[in-house]
């Protein structure tokens, strides 16, 4: 077995153990209703986490996504309110915009040779500021097409609702897996995260890959913004503050190495579901307070960071021992 896959199995193990604990304590939780809600409530987070996974795999970070989601919501709401456009062309326009926005940040990171952290921090300010400029107040979306989208679901056995946005999230994960594992671009992303210098020696076009990976993250943030606007039925510039950190946490809990180069898109899905599960558990319990979510997520982060540090140390000493 590859040591690289161990965190993924740990992730899956923790999720299954979590499911078991939930099921033992609250047998009611094992219903399609809970499952449907889990997918629907975390759809926007999951989608943006797919983009974040690729960025982190490449050795970068994207702090702008939370703001971009908020901007997307406001943009859609204002466009639908002030122009007579149908939502679909607005969606297309928005996705083009956020993709280009991500590409610009990637270009700056590559050109300026500055940490992604600070460049995307500027991107975070700018996107949030742009959202404010469009509207400070929450703008409701009343377009009939939105009602259609919101009411689109498939009734699972057991009365659980598999909503459109839940399905969209799952499809996004499939897309992310294909991009990461079945394209040359995906391999380049892993290569870059494994070591920039070596990647360049092997022929990775670093600039192009960096621009593309942030563009992909921008696209995912835009899509997530659409999903979030469907979920809430409005656009609000103060929404999804800090979502980038939740997404990063989901990626890390999903077993991806924060320094890049190792991890799986599927792990991120499990990470998102684990975080959703914690929240669901707390809701079911009723006596536990919401802040335990944050503390448990922080603990999980710690566990995974230490686990990966330990694995790194282990593989190094094992190789050293063999070379000796």
């Amino acid at each position, binding site marked *: 077995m590859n040591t690289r896959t161990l965190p993924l199995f740990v992730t899956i193990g923790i999720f299954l153990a979590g499911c078991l604990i939930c099921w033992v304590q609250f047998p009611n939780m094992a219903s399609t209703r809970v499952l449907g809600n889990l997918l629907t409530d975390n759809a926007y987070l999951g989608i943006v986490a797919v983009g974040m996974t690729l960025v982190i795999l490449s050795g970068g970070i994207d702090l702008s996504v939370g703001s971009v989601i908020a901007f997307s919501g406001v943009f859609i709401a204002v466009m639908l309110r002030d122009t007579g456009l149908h939502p679909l062309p607005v969606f297309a326009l928005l996705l083009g915009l956020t993709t280009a926005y991500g590409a610009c940040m990637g270009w700056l990171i590559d050109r300026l040779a500055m940490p992604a952290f600070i460049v995307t*921090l500027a991107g975070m300010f700018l996107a949030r500021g742009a959202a404010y400029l469009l509207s400070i107040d929450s703008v409701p979306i009343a377009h009939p097409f939105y009602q259609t989208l919101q009411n689109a679901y498939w009734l699972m056995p057991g009365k659980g609702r598999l909503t459109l946005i839940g399905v969209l999230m799952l499809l996004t994960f499939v897309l992310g897996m294909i991009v990461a594992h079945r394209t040359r671009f995906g391999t380049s992303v892993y290569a870059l995260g494994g070591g920039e210098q070596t990647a360049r020696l092997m022929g990775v076009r670093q600039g192009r890959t960096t621009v593309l990976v942030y563009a992909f993250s921008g696209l995912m943030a835009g899509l997530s913004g659409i999903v979030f606007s469907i979920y809430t039925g409005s656009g609000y510039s103060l929404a999804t503050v800090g979502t980038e950190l939740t997404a990063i946490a989901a990626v890390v809990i999903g077993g991806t190495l924060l320094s890049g180069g190792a991890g799986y898109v599927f792990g991120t899905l499990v990470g998102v579901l684990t975080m959703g599960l914690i929240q669901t558990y707390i809701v079911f319990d009723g006596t536990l307070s919401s802040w335990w979510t944050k503390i448990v997520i922080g603990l999980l982060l710690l566990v995974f960071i230490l686990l990966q540090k330990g694995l790194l140390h282990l593989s190094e000493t094992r190789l050293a021992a063999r070379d000796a």
Partner: protein
Amino acid sequence: MTGTALKRIAPQLLALAALVGLVSLFYPGFLSVSVNDGRLVGPAIDVLKRSAPVAILAVGMTLVIATRGIDLSVGATMAICGAVAAYAVSAGTGLPVALALAIGAGLLAGLWNGVLVALVGVQPFVATLILMTAGRGIAQLITEGRILTFTDPAFAFVGSGTLWGLPFPAWLWLALAVLTALVMRRTALGMLVESIGINRRASALAGVNAVVLLIAVYMAMGFCAALAGLVVTADIRGADANNAGLWLELDAILAVVIGGNSLLGGRFSIAASVIGALIIQTITIGIRLAGFPSEYNLVIKAVLVVVILVLQSPRIAAEWRYWRDEARRKREAEGKGTP
């Protein structure tokens, strides 16, 4: 020596002066100060007071960044310390004990981050992300999700009192900045911190105790976060675990960056960082006074960051040197061509 120090902070001072001039253009009364009830009042005084949390954080963040690190957890630490202080005061421990507990909590948070960074060897960004995520939960655990209000007037003084005409928070950040700068420059700490930020390997080989120094720097950051948390909590007479210090880590980092300190570690100037905090606050208040919607604030911050990044970029610097050398070579070649 004072000459070089002044030269170092000149760009920040000029930027601040230009900004004040610009704001005064839109709002002529910006610099006007009146005395009201023994207190100085005016927009500029307001800037001094409201800069306090970010300026205090910027002092610690300057040191952390000088070691080539970053601390994302300071906002959460502020919330924890505010909650601890408010809880203790409402429980009737008395102010000194409450303050000591809050500062102890800040130091503990710093110790935690420092150990992860210096001993376990986790990248600072990742290490401090843990406390950033969990910290707010811990703060809420203490306040039990409510805004913990208190009525202790002595504690409230920390956030909104007036001392010798100026708001107490203004004195606090001024004193902290001056003291820290003095400690850094009058002892050898400043140089040792810079040396581990520039080249940790070489410094360790020369006998610098990088591990202890790193932990100490993160603890100093925790101390600053505790002070900032106390100011914020005292100002609103309540500990708000959800919102106290929210996103202030980013403003603190921004202040340090505006202060011309490199994110890649090394030479630092606390004075420049504090002026950076003043610049941020002047923009915020200036935009409001000048009658623009405050929505511009974030856009301006973003533009600021990008401009500073371009100025700091190693690649741009290399290209600039290349063109300068080229130009010089060309000039010399021409000089030789026409004897």
